[in-house]
């Protein structure tokens, strides 16, 4: 299968007062076309940072130190090296080709706008031309249908609108409407764009199985339940049918029944759109449920990556084994992993897991383990495998 995103030697560091934090260290990761790749790991293992690095949204004082992230866009664009793109190009990719669903649906929605407004914004940002085209068609049908005195008064205004929307539909940056859209009161003149966007929004809300979407669109976030909010956030992320959907712990803050619905929704979306999904979670059950392949991260490094059945049936890395043992089971005493997560300021030398590893050797303390293939499509970074 072809790769959609190829990450090579990615390093993300945070320059804090206490020292340099190695949030991600020499990460190699491929996301294939149409697959769901899960990233699992403890808090602070660099899962979310990997996601933010793909979008180039690493917060200050973090920096992408080195490496490359190549995004392969089949419909135009071709291979794009995301780390060297200009900020403007990057903005046209965010939310459009690559979009993200955040962990907490409650706080990922702006409390002062309605759900509809917020989803429309995505269309207005990335689908301006298409909206202009639709608006133009609407004005044209008005011009051809309109008759009577009132309409003949409005006719010159419609002609002006047709010219305006035609401009928007043709060029991506026409001067006149651009000027208009920056002046607060004149912005209202482009209301047809907003109308078209809200039509698309209602369709989008229907797609994520929100009942009565037209009514929900005019609600504020605090008027909706957690599950509905998460659906709205997913609708926002899917608005422009992205090639890659990054889901950062999308089910963590939801209760179990809603979680199951969300996972079902993700599966359906993937089947419908053929998008790849990068699914970040610390819940192994969830990962087993939705993912095609699973990557395990520890302290900013990749430990193991394999197909979902392979990794759950034949875990090779001691950390993966320990994680699987730590899943609570009825009738079995809970196994914990001794020790604490490696200190990112002063990471242990060699393999970062060695202080907690039951089978560590002297070699593990000195030399870092490289990824190697132990079975087909099963890569492990461990000296013992």
């Amino acid at each position, binding site marked *: 299968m072809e790769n959609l995103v190829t990450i090579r030697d990615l390093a993300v560091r945070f320059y804090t007062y206490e020292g340099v934090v190695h949030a991600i260290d020499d990460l190699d990761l491929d996301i294939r076309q149409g697959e769901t790749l899960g990233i699992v790991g403890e808090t602070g293992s660099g899962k979310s940072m990997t996601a933010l690095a793909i*979008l180039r949204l690493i917060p200050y004082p973090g920096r992408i130190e080195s490496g490359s992230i190549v995004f392969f866009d089949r419909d135009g664009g071709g291979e794009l090296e995301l780390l060297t793109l200009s900020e403007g190009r990057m*903005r046209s990719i*965010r*939310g459009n080709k690559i*979009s993200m669903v*955040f962990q907490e649906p409650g*706080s*990922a929605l702006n409390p002062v706008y309605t759900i509809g407004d917020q989803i429309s914004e995505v269309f207005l*940002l990335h689908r301006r031309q298409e909206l202009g085209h639709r608006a133009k068609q609407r004005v044209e049908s008005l011009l051809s249908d309109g008759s009577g005195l009132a309409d003949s008064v409005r006719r010159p205004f419609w002609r002006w609108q047709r010219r305006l929307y035609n401009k928007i539909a043709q060029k991506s940056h026409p001067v006149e409407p651009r000027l208009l859209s920056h002046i607060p009161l004149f912005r209202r003149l482009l209301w047809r764009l907003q109308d078209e966007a809200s039509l698309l929004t209602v369709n989008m809300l229907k797609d994520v199985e929100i009942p009565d979407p037209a009514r929900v669109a005019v609600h504020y976030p605090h008027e909706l339940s957690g599950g509905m909010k998460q659906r709205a956030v997913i609708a*926002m992320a899917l608005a422009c049918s992205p090639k890659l959907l990054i889901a950062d712990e999308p089910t963590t803050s939801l209760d179990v029944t809603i979680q199951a619905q969300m996972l079902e929704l993700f599966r359906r979306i993937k089947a419908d759109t053929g998008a790849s999904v990068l699914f970040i979670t610390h819940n192994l059950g969830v990962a087993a449920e939705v993912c095609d392949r699973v990557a395990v991260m520890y302290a900013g490094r990749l430990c193991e990556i394999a197909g979902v059945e392979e990794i759950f049936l034949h875990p090779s890395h001691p950390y993966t084994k320990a994680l699987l043992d730590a899943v609570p089971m009825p009738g079995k005493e809970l196994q914990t992993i001794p020790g604490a997560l490696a200190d990112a300021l002063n990471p242990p030398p060699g393999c970062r897991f060695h202080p907690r590893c039951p089978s560590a050797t002297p070699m593990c303390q000195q030399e870092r383990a490289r990824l190697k293939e132990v079975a087909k499509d099963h890569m492990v970074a461990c000296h013992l495998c």
Partner: protein
Amino acid sequence: MARQLVKNPLSLIGIIIIVVFAILAIFAPLIAPIPEGHRDPYMIPRDGYSATPQPPNEEHIFGTTEGQYDIFYGVIWGTRSAFRVGLVVIGIVVAIGIVLGSLAGYFGGVLDEIIMRITDIFLAFPALILAMAIVAAIGPSLRSVMIALIVVSWPSYARLIRGDILQVREEDYIEASRGLGASSGRVIIRHALPNSIYPTLVMASLDIGAIVLAAAALSFLGLGAPEGYADWGQLTSFARNWIVGPPGNSLKYWYAVTIPGLFILFFVLGWNLLGDAFRDILDPRLARR
């Protein structure tokens, strides 16, 4: 929102006071007609040059103050000056505060450091003394008073907005909107500011009264409008020597200081009550049902 405003008796009083003052200001030419042959309507007409204030009589219903300036005309037209000083100064100050505060808060780093150290410099001076120095430097007039008040009051607004933006900046929806491809300008204007502007609006409505009071204080010190300009501070300034009457009749000239004083008092009180009402309504922590 309108219903909430009217329900609270104090805020209702505030609204009534401000509306009455607004009517006085709008209909000033009808309430206190401009005498014929009078060139600048903002200059108070005077009836002679005697220093002693004259008590209210038929011709001057609030009496005249030192220099025979008509108090009634002065307070009515002074309402316009008060609104102008209050609204213009607050408008400009809030605009400066929003621009600088949101730049500093959102982008942080060096820009934040530079803007905040400049506000520190301004905040290091006692406001009224700095305002006096500025007026003295550029020459006393109502416009200099306004400039001076703008210069001394923008830093606290920039601070307030910066703080609120800093808080909002960490919210997920800001990151989410960046993740959806919004530019920094769009994020600030559409997402950060609407969530952080309310404390500023409350402070602005409370401050209009304080600004008018400060302008009156500067005028009282003789640093404000030119002599005879319709301005409440100026009128109280005229009454400076007549606060206490001759022995045995110490309240003889009460009207000279009390009437403009009451106008200032009610104007400031009105804005304060309105500001409190705004706070109760706009602060989401107090008002979200």
